[in-house]
């Protein structure tokens, strides 16, 4: 996960409905702020209070929040909206002239893509990432890091592919058994892209807790919300045996079970028990032919 922030350039955080990425974005923002950087946040989806929630005051003092949440389309007519709308706000970020390394967090890139043409967003991202190479060349190159939160399900393959080609690092969030994982694809110049999967969790103060591997237990946890259900609770027949019934059942000998008593009974023929009588009353339609049909066989 260290490589995510080390490379600089555009970092795409691709999340989904089930595995949300804003908490990871906030964790990376906190890490950047702890390194002494200034962090500019273009907030489109949540309010400033909600974004700053959970950060200590030392972190919050380093965050500059550009509020596109309250009135992005200038519907309120109160003059609180950022000038130029979403595109103006994004282009204003490209014109930052503060010295020193800084990080820009876009919350979210998806919101920008839904409201602006893809080409405008890509051009702005290019301008942001290459901001360190200023004309004149007197100042040394300052690394600019752009963290973009992207909701994968909202965009087609064209937009996703375009952003992918601009990104130095792509972090795709998923998980299993309640544990989040990040698949990290890093593109270093003149090197093959590197893949890495990192299991992690985010603590309440937004620090990253990296785990070694997937969770060890393979059985799913019994759900704490649902009490174990007794399937015999509502049946209309009796599934239980009383004590007497149990005893009678246990002492029963099964007809085809070969026990030693049965063996003795078969070996010792008891008088009167081997013979059995058949009583037959023929009725009018019976054809009683005493002749043995096999008599004429010459066997």
């Amino acid at each position, binding site marked *: 996960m260290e490589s995510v922030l080390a490379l600089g350039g555009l970092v795409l955080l691709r999340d989904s409905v089930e595995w949300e990425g804003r908490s990871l974005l906030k964790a990376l923002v906190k890490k950047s702020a702890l390194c002494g950087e200034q962090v500019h946040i273009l907030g489109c989806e949540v309010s400033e209070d909600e974004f700053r929630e959970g950060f200590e005051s030392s972190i919050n003092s380093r965050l500059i929040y550009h509020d596109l949440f309250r009135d*992005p389309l200038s519907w309120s007519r109160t003059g609180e909206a950022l000038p130029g709308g979403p595109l103006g706000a994004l282009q204003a970020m490209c014109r930052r002239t503060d010295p020193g390394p800084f990080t820009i967090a876009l919350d979210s890139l998806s919101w920008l893509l*839904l409201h602006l043409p893809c080409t405008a967003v890509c051009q702005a991202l290019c301008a942001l990432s290459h901001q360190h190479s200023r004309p004149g060349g007197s100042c040394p190159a300052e690394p600019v890091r752009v963290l973009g939160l992207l909701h994968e399900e909202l965009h087609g393959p064209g937009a996703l592919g375009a952003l992918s080609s601009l990104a130095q690092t792509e972090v795709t969030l998923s998980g299993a058994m309640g544990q989040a994982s990040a698949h990290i694809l890093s593109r270093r110049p003149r090197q093959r892209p590197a893949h890495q999967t990192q299991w992690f969790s985010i603590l309440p103060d937004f620090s990253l807790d990296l785990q070694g591997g997937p969770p060890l237990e393979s059985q799913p946890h019994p759900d704490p919300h649902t009490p174990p259900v007794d399937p015999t609770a509502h049946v209309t027949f009796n599934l239980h045996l009383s004590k007497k019934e149990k005893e009678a059942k246990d002492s029963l000998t099964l007809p085809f079970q070969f026990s030693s008593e049965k063996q003795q009974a078969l070996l010792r023929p008891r008088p009167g028990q081997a013979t059995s009588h058949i009583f037959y009353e023929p009725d009018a339609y019976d054809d009683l032919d005493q002749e043995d049909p096999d008599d004429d066989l010459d066997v």
Partner: protein
Amino acid sequence: MFPELNNLLNITPDRAEQGKLTLLCDAKTDGSFLVHHFLSFYLKANCKVCFVALIQSFSHYNIVGQKLGVSLTAARECGQLVFLEGLKSSVDVFFRAQAEPHPLQFLREADAGNLQPLYEFVRETLKPMDDGQAAWRCPVLLVDDLSVLLSLGLGAVAVLDFIHYCRVAVCWERKGNIVALAHDSGDGEDKENDILLNGLSHQSHLILRAEGLATGFCRDVHGQLRILWRTPSQPTAQRDGSLTYQYKIQDKSVSFFAKGMSPAVL
């Protein structure tokens, strides 16, 4: 409201959360019973409710509401419920003077419109009363449903913008709640609907998804309800916030049971 559903969601009218967006969606079944549940729930919780009803008439919701123990007529008369009856008032769009913007003004516009007039209507309805009247608990916006707006010619982004602004006005400024129903066609062919549904899901704190059974229609089990709790900005120590139950809708209640545990099957 359905007490069993309250138990599953761990809420009561006295302890309703605030500032939340709840998304109701249905796939291959009718999820409107969830709308009736939340309507009666928030009326019983003494909240001021703005109901944008685009699908059914007032009397329909009133009849179902009476079975669940609330009178929409009484709530409307005392000002607790503001009911925008889409079916009736859409006709007014064409017969009103054009100077006054109508909440459903987009029906009149030839090109792709937006829902700003509807948002202004919601904001005006749910603004706090400052004349000393009985204060309601918190404002609630209920929408039935959002997918029909796509059929009426709006784009998914326009509907998402409307919900965004309502979140600002209702959830953030007034600490109220929003409950909205959207349909899921399920086959992936309606791209606009998928964008709408996914966009809403990313903004939601609670998603209730009613699905038909994969094996088809059943007399004793009407469908399956998936409940997904989300915290879009806060880390969760353990992501076990998803439950699935099956349900059967009766005349005045809905019974929920674990999968495969319907009393009719046992």
